[in-house]
């Protein structure tokens, strides 16, 4: 079994997997259909303000698992669907940003700056086309980087990192996420500490479930879905509901500006925006490969870099912020190129970097048979390593989704503008009920819904207090792994208390972790009074 055999098996797993139906004698595999379905759903959800990719992933996950069951055969259809949602939501977010000046997803905020002025000037279709091409290009570039990098990184990790180094690497990732996300290091660390604490309730090695207060309700700990969906989704729903409740829905119906002129995307346009796309794609990919920073920062950086170049090179044309196509290109290429690269730490280290990656890990854990991490990329000689086949299947699924993006994404994107008309105050209560139901069908107890509500309130408070919730989510996911690895490293080294610093690699990781926190302490704080 060489690498090429595995790549071929992965492609075959997607295309020749279980058939759903056949067209003219050619079987259409269920995975392909799921990627398409996820992609279309993703565009719709991305185009709906108040919804986002992670929400759609959260809600569809229990349905998907029930359809496909807990067998390794379920992995590719389910994860293919999630990848489709991830990619669809990325391009969908630009639609309301351009048409209505309302970003569908947070990372599309920068798209409004130039997209909406273009729409007002009667160039909405062209703006959408530019957003689509840039987004698809950034996304594809990022995926190629992922496919080229992840296996090698994983093999390096597996070859050079022993248990103590793996522990140190987890600590470094958490330190990085806590220090870099959000405005304040202190708040990031609080968020991370709370996430770790929640992960440690009722887990551990003793038979007594620690910190469970002797209660049977807490004895199984907090199910992963309750903590993640609570903080990520219910927290956002509660906050938005309060805002709406206060404003009593002041926003009236929106008018779409009239359209005119040449809407076609010409070769000269593409030549014009290509340098911006390229630059932003690199920025987004680099940002994406670092766990936890996310697409909003990538969009900001891509836009800023593009803006500087634009002012310098093309002083005569429409400036950024006034309806420059280059502005849309710079933003969309940057935020779209995060998603692929974000899977580099997931697949090679098992460390999720953003909410979409969190749901891929959640899916893998719920279904079983695929444990994202360096052990996936074991190129076995005699036997087939099924996890590696799944990994290459995922890569294939991403490329299929990109193909869909290039071919039908643009056309579909232009028809989902109607989603803006769904009033948020009706949508949010439904999302709340949907999320609670999704949790109940997985856990089958009302106490789990209460846990989710509790985490939702925590997420709400964090949003009100300016504490980023992502360190919480990622710490919750990595907490158990961190403790297990540390215990194992400690036991494996025969009880060496200094196991984190005795090996040079581990010591470097630990030093970096301290340095990241210390440096972030010195960065200027965002004070916006």
């Amino acid at each position, binding site marked *: 079994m060489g690498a090429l055999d595995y790549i071929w098996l992965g492609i075959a797993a997607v295309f020749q997997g279980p058939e759903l139906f056949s067209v003219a004698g050619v079987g259409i595999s269920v995975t392909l259909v799921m990627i398409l379905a996820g992609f279309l759903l993703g565009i719709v959800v991305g185009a709906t303000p108040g919804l986002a990719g992670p929400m759609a992933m959260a809600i569809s996950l229990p349905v998907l698992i029930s359809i496909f069951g807990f067998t390794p055969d379920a992995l590719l259809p389910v994860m293919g669907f999630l990848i489709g949602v991830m990619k669809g939501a990325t391009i969908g977010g630009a639609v309301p940003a351009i048409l209505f000046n309302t970003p569908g997803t947070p990372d599309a905020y920068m798209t409004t700056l130039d997209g909406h002025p273009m729409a007002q000037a009667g160039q909405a279709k062209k703006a959408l086309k530019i957003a689509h091409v840039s987004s698809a290009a950034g996304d594809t570039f990022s995926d190629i980087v992922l496919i080229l990098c992840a296996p090698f990184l994983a093999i390096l990790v597996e070859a050079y990192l022993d248990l103590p180094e793996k522990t140190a690497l987890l600590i470094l990732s958490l330190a990085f996420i806590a220090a870099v996300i959000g405005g304040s290091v202190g708040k990031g660390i609080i968020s991370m500490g709370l996430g770790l604490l929640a992960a440690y309730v009722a887990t551990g090695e003793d038979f007594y479930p620690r910190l469970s207060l002797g209660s049977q309700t807490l004895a*199984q700990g907090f199910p992963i879905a309750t903590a993640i969906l609570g903080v990520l989704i219910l927290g956002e729903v509660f906050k938005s509901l309060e805002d709406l409740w206060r404003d009593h829905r002041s926003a009236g119906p929106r008018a779409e500006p009239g359209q005119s002129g040449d809407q076609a995307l010409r070769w000269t346009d593409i030549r014009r925006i290509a340098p911006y796309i390229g630059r932003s794609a690199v920025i987004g990919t680099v940002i994406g490969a670092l766990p936890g920073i996310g697409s909003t920062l990538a969009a900001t950086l891509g836009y800023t870099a593009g803006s500087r170049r634009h002012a310098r090179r093309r002083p005569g044309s429409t400036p950024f912020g006034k309806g420059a196509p280059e502005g849309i290109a710079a933003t969309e290429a940057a935020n779209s190129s995060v998603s692929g690269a974000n899977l580099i730490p997931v697949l090679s280290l098992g460390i999720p970097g953003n909410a979409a990656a969190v749901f891929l890990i959640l899916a893998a854990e719920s279904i079983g048979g695929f444990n994202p991490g360096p052990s996936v990329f074991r190129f076995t000689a005699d036997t087939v390593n099924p996890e590696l086949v799944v990994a290459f299947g995922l890569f294939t699924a991403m490329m299929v989704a990109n193909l869909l993006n290039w071919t039908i994404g643009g056309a579909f994107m232009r028809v989902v503008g109607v989603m803006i008309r769904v009033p948020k105050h009706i949508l949010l209560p439904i999302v709340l009920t949907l999320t609670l139901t999704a949790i109940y069908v997985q856990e089958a107890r009302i106490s789990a819904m209460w846990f989710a509500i509790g985490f939702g309130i925590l997420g709400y408070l964090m949003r009100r207090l300016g504490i980023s919730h992502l360190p919480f989510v990622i710490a919750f996911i990595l907490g158990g792994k961190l403790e297990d690895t540390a215990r194992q490293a400690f036991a494996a080294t025969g009880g060496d208390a200094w196991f984190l610093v005795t090996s040079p690699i581990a010591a470097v990781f630990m030093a970096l972790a301290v340095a990241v926190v210390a440096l972030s302490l010195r960065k200027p704080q965002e004070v916006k009074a």
Partner: protein
Amino acid sequence: MRTMLKSAVAALAGLVLATAAPASDWTPPGPVKLMIAFAAGGGADTQARLIAEDLEAKLGWSFIPEQVTGKGGMNLAMAIKDMPNDGSVIGMVVTETLGYNMRVADAGVTPDDFTAITTTAGFQMGVVSLASKGWTTFADVVEAAKSGEALRFGTMSPRLSDLAYLLGKANGVEFNIVQVKGGRAVMNGVNAGDMDLGFMAGIQGKGVAAGDLVNLASALSEPLKQTPEAPTFADLGVEFVADGYFTFIGPAGMPTEARDALAAAIAEAVSTEGMKSHGIIAKAFGGPAVIAGDELQALVAADFEAAGALLEAASE
């Protein structure tokens, strides 16, 4: 001749009982909640779900599977304890849950608080290492350890950690015992080189057949089916063994009729060629091993009692 006749009669009686029981009038009062103490997607979880599917297809009963994992099955035990005992809730754990784990957990319950229904299969628990290590038998491990190599021994439960410790002690060596969650984690650890050897309960089958992994010893009272020449724990001077079974339990005081009907139905599914659950048990767990009813109740009670001796031996 007499004994032969006797056993033939007994076997026949058993056969009649086994076929008669599902035909008895008992049917579950509504859907049966099936609690599973194993992580979703693993071999044990698949086994439980396939048994449910088999029974649904054959008897028309309806099962609702639900994961209640953690704490070596103790989470499931504590959750099922106070549920209705009319046969509408059953759970799948391992005998170790009601034995060693329940003893150590000291959570105020004993096997008497549960109804043991039936076992389905045993473990093919071996001490396994990578073939590339160059070890062919456990003596090579002892030799390597004695020459000063610090060896990491992967285990997946406190009981197995005790056994690993005693195995080392009996052979005059000390292992760094690394306890992880689940057999797959041991296999991944061994494959990645994070551990030198470890306990695997059947998951090693494919790797051993392919020549990537080696069964160095059997942790059972009898040799492994796949590698009969590997020494048993008794051969290696350890007086305790890791024998154990997957077992279905219910809350205490389940009516005998319900218990026996469930046991017979499950036993038939796992023992019948062509059933889905039989397939996976034959493939991954060395074939069905059925112990049911009072006999099983006595077995787990004995395990619970015997756990003290192992604890004491390992705490020296």
